[in-house]
């Protein structure tokens, strides 16, 4: 029974990791990464490692995706601003 749970959790983690790599758009990848964090938490719990599961839950499903999203927002806003500035420069005589 325990083995079955572990095997299931392992396959979920493998699938989530593959998805986190396959999703190429960084904002969507943040979501996939947080999903990976949740599946890892599940795996660590069934592997009798509550300490690591707790750490993974706090970091993997909240902190890392948030940092990725903030970086995406910064990069995207920069390129938007640049496009806007170029447009303004063209409009000026």
């Amino acid at each position: 029974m325990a083995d079955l749970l572990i095997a299931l959790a392992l396959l979920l983690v493998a699938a989530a990791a593959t998805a986190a790599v396959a999703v190429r758009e960084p904002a969507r990848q943040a979501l996939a990464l947080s999903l990976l964090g949740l599946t890892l938490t599940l795996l660590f719990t069934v592997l009798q490692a509550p300490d690591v599961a707790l750490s993974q839950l706090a970091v993997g499903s909240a902190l890392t995706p948030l940092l990725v999203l903030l970086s995406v927002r910064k990069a995207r806003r920069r390129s938007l601003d640049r496009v806007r500035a170029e447009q303004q420069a063209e409009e000026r005589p």
Partner: protein
Amino acid sequence: MMDVLPYLVAAWIFLVGCYGLATSRNLIHAVGCLAVCQAATYVLLLSVGYRHSGTAPVFADLTPHTRPVVDPVVQALALTDVVVGATVTALLLALVIQVAKRHHTLDPDELSELRG
């Protein structure tokens, strides 16, 4: 099959992460792939430390020597790295933000054309 499945899954996660890292067209995505590679090490470490019908090595509600417990050493290794790894990810993302500021691109291929 169950004897080696956890090790094979760890290897798969590592290889998939490496593949994503090498073929990434966006530096933020590459940092995410590195986080996937890191996850492989946790899976491997905790699998090595697992013991059948063992329980967590926490004796707050468990009388010592009544049940087999899993290996606490590998758990301690994984636990610190989860948190420290996140701050290293933050450092890498800070570098990516700087690259975006200075070179106005996040594509590694365009960066090598730009020469540093």
